[in-house]
């Protein structure tokens, strides 16, 4: 029993397990409140709370928090404007929501909080977000250009090459949600597994006596460095997700390359 418990805490996969907090069912759909749901709600509350709380002063000369909120806003706004042009600013709230949701979900998972769970380390979540992007892209493309949207699969090349290139374009388009979701999922998963493995080394070495305790310095140092790296990755993956969303949306706005 004791060893099983110890195995659980050292198991690097244990942290990805969904734990039921409050089982629920709405219209026959499983809507149980789990640790994943808890951290989704926390992501929502903290990100929206931060963006609203930091701007409460509406100061002409911003303070620290307001500066951060404005910086994030300008960062995403500039990105959307650069990739989609000023007419693409109608997608700004969507891209911003994606960015801030992924950023907060990624980052929250790095803190030693109770029942901590990284929302974006679940494949279904990243895949759902990627599919949402694809639905918006295809939906807007069809709404704006009708069947002209399918020019996206017709690259501007000699007709002879089309039989080869059109399938390639279609496959590359269809693989977008997969690469978009797997990239984020795999980065989060791998980072957390690595962190857990090195943290586990500290515990295993620490139980080996004085020499072992002295040796824990090494996995500890690596753990510190990895944590810093994971914060960078958390931000970077949110940024990559938002940037790719913009690039895919550009295809919906201007399908004919």
């Amino acid at each position, binding site marked *: 029993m004791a060893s099983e418990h110890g195995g659980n805490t050292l198991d690097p996969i244990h942290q990805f397990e969904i734990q039921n907090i409050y089982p629920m069912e709405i219209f026959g759909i*499983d809507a149980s409140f789990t640790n994943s749901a808890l951290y989704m709600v926390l992501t*929502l509350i903290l990100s929206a709370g931060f963006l609203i709380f930091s701007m409460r002063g*509406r100061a002409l000369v911003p303070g620290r928090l307001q500066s951060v909120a404005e910086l994030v*806003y300008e960062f995403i706004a500039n990105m959307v404007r650069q990739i989609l042009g000023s007419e693409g600013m109608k997608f700004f709230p969507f891209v911003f*929501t994606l960015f801030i949701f992924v950023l907060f979900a990624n980052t929250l998972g790095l803190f030693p909080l109770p029942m901590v769970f990284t929302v974006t380390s679940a494949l279904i979540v990243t895949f759902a977000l990627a599919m949402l992007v694809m639905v918006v892209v295809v939906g807007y493309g069809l709404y704006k250009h009708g069947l002209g949207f399918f020019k996206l699969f017709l690259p501007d090349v000699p007709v002879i090459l089309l039989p080869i290139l059109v399938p390639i374009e279609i496959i590359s388009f269809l693989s977008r949600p997969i690469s978009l979701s797997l990239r984020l999922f795999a980065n989060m*998963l791998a980072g957390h597994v690595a962190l857990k493995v090195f943290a586990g080394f500290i515990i295993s070495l620490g139980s080996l006596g004085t020499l072992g305790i002295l040796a824990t310095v090494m996995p500890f140092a690596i753990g510190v460095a990895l944590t810093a790296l994971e914060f960078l990755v958390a931000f970077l993956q949110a940024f990559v997700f938002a940037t790719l969303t913009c690039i895919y949306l550009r295809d919906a706005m201007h399908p004919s390359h």
Partner: protein
Amino acid sequence: MAEQQTELHKELDHSIEVPAAEKKVFPPFDQTTFESQLVWLALTFVLLYVVLSRMALPRIGEVLEERQDRIQRDMDEANRLREETDKAIATYEEALATARKKANEIAEETRADLKAEIAKEQQVVEDKIAAKTSQAEASITAAKEAAFSEVGKIAQATTSTIVEKLLGTSVSEDEINKALN
């Protein structure tokens, strides 16, 4: 050898079989949790989108726009003031140039006036000096002439006195004059 291999296979099968029986699927691929995750993801994401697009983002955008407007206004004002300053400087420089020119003109004029006056005064003085000189020269000439005529008389008198003293007799004036001249 073959026996050993089957043994190994058995062992491998065993090692694979045991965790598969005890452990659940890899959690991220556990389909039983998908439904609740999707429900809560949809709920939180839509709520976040609504809150951000309706409240948070317009507010930040407003503040940023307000600041941009304020900066633009201040810049415009600064530009206007600078233009005004430039204009003032130009006006000042123009006035300065005019004043300098005028001052030069006045100085030139004054100098010419003074020169003329000095020349006039000089002329007057020179005329006066010339008059006095000629007057003096005339009086000197008169005095000289007077003196010369006196000299003749004195010489005559002296000569007659000396001749009288030497000869003891008076000589006629004509004779003395004849001797002297």
